[in-house]
């Protein structure tokens, strides 16, 4: 009898424990996030996650800082291959095709059941959704998204007799302004360049600004066809090469991405193209009056979008997927995304965020924050294909070869198109 009773107690105890484990595991979430800009980004994500968990005791979300974008996708894919993926992750929007190809993510459509959910999914800027949808399904929800803008040094503009409040509006004006802004010392060495379009690491992104302005799209929305050798792409690359060569308004060779804001602060360049993600950095560190404007236009206005989306991973329970969905819905809501935008400079991904009082107060105090939003109207999807990293590497190599003068723009791009065709032929 005693034995049986003890056995019973043990049984009940273990059943209780099992129950606890079951309820706990149903809503235990692991959430990977990358940090690509300095400072407060990681703290802000952690604080937002903690706030959500505090208000929703049913969901236990563990936010894991996973390094750069590159490291995050590597970690997430390695974990998925090992059978233990995170349930939720922020990964570059351009990695969508890779994640689909690896069969590790699920579309959000199946999780959006109520009309409210569906309305939420269509509440984002269309420019950001281009990189988040394929084949009629939505695989990513925009979160830390950016777009490149033009920063200019108002003091330098005044010094050479340009209107300090007017940035160049066209390609020709950028060259014209640039020529005025180039400053040389007694030895004829340039001490200040007119403009700086960084080209190290991932030159394709800013170059995509030029191609869009020249009215050409680099890849189709199925992600299996590129147009690298289009004459308009060649023309855009020729313009970029000419900025350093023929026009002499930009430093020659590959220009380092990371050192660009510093070069701007040091007065080494009067204008720079870089991400809106640097807005807070420039605001805090530029020792002079600066302006923020849209990229100059050519045949049309244009810029790529960039940055990261939320993805929900496949290898998780339905409860986890639902909890992940609810969390994403909450963190991209107007109030939360306003906090996120103010802390980092990323573009708030939906119009109603800009209508919140928090955001209105911020933009009233700092109007340059609105430039990126206004530019979204002209923005297109960032270059993204199947085998994305390989295809963009091929493209980057071609751009670098042309910028350093190893190949002509036409030759370099024709070769890149050939290689991209070879890589993508299995996906057509």
């Amino acid at each position, binding site marked *: 009898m005693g034995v049986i009773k003890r056995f019973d107690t043990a049984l009940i105890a273990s059943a209780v424990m099992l129950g606890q484990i079951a309820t706990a595991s149903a809503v235990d979430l692991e959430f990977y996030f990358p940090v690509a800009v300095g400072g407060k980004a990681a703290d802000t994500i952690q604080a937002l996650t903690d706030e959500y968990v505090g208000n929703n005791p049913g969901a236990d979300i563990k936010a894991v800082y996973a390094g750069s974008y*590159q490291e995050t996708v*590597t970690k997430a*894919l*390695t974990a998925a291959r090992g059978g233990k993926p995170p349930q939720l992750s922020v990964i570059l929007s351009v990695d969508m095709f*890779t994640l*689909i*190809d*690896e*069969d*590790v993510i699920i579309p959000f459509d199946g999780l959006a059941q109520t009309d409210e959910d569906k309305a939420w999914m269509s509440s984002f800027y269309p420019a950001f959704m281009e990189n988040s949808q394929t084949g009629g399904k939505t695989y990513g929800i925009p979160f830390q998204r950016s777009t490149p803008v033009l920063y200019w040094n108002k003091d330098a503009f005044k010094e050479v007799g340009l209107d300090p409040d007017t940035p160049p509006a066209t390609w020709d004006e950028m060259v014209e302004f640039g020529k005025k802004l180039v400053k040389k*010392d*007694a*030895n*004829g*060495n*340039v001490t200040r360049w007119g403009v700086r379009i960084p*080209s*190290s*690491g991932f030159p394709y992104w800013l170059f995509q600004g030029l191609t869009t302005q020249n009215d050409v799209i680099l890849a189709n929305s199925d992600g299996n066809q590129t147009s690298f050798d289009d004459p308009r792409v060649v023309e855009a690359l020729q313009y970029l090469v000419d900025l350093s060569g023929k026009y002499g308004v930009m*430093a*020659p*060779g*590959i*220009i*380092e991405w*990371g*050192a660009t804001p*510093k*070069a701007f602060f*040091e007065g*080494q360049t009067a204008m720079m193209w870089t991400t809106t993600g640097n807005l807070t950095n420039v605001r805090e560190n530029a020792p002079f009056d600066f302006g923020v404007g849209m990229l100059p236009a050519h045949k049309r206005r244009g810029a790529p979008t960039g940055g990261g989306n939320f993805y929900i991973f496949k290898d998780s329970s339905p409860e986890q997927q639902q909890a992940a969905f609810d969390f994403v819905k909450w963190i991209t809501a107007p109030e939360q995304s306003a906090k996120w935008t103010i802390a980092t400079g990323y573009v708030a991904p939906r119009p109603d965020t800009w209508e919140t009082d928090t955001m209105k107060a911020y933009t009233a105090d700092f109007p340059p924050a609105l430039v990126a939003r206004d530019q979204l109207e002209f923005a297109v999807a960032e270059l993204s294909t199947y*085998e994305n*990293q*390989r295809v963009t*590497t091929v493209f*980057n*190599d*071609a751009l*670098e*070869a042309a*910028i*350093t003068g*190893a190949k002509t723009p036409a030759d370099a791009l024709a070769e890149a198109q050939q290689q991209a065709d070879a890589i993508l032929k299995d996906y057509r």
Partner: protein
Amino acid sequence: MLHRRAWVYGWLFLSPALLFLFAFTHYPALNTIISSFFSTPRGRRPAKFIGPENYQEMLQDPVFWKVLSNNFWFAAGTIPISIGLALLMALWVNSHLRGRTLARMAFFAPTVLPLIAVANIWMFFYTPGFGLIDQIRGGLFGLPAINLLGNPDTVLAAMIVVAIWKEAGFFMIFYLAALQSIPPVLREAADVEGAGRFYFFRRVMLPLLMPTTLFVSVNAVINSFRLVDHIFVMTDGGPNNASSLLLFYIYETAFKFWQTGYAATLTVVMLILLSVLAIGQFFLFDRKIHYQ
């Protein structure tokens, strides 16, 4: 019986190390060789046997040949100079000069720093316009700014300088230890016989340093294939693969492009290269080495 017990003990003592060697070196190496004959698995398509296809692809891959030749020049640039510099520095800090502890410490400091940190320091040196090199060039000599990392003709040389700076101090320590183990009586005997300093160095010290030279040069060869951390920080292999090395390309192929099958193939090539070089060095030097 006693013999048998010694045998069992021997294996027992060896087993922990062996276990780790097999689990973390031999098994992965073997697995890599097998993977190199399979296609890369993708979500819905498992890996399938494709024979030597990856190897054929490799022979036709221009980037592979580019990184291989880069690696050759990187090795040719770093190995002799860093060893020569290490020997010079060791001879110098071994002599009775004032403040030699400070000099030893200064020479050894780069070794202690992580390569990532070193790369960031050198990034500052190389930055065009306001980096250290350009400030000196512009400030003292009135020369124009120079973009060492942004030019395919200079980028590899710039990376070689970083590697030499990092390595020479490390090799110096080995030479210093070897120099201190040379008995002073040899020096005295040479003085009595009237041998000059250079003659003494060439005929007595250098031969006695040969075992160290072998050790150092094997390490230098391995390092010339292994040191890639600075590439991530400084150039990402660019411009147009001008500063990419074999190991960096393997990383890119495996974890950026996710072509794990092809990455395994490249790894096999690297394993073969390193083994051949190490074995070759042992045979080449063996005849010239006098172990005390």
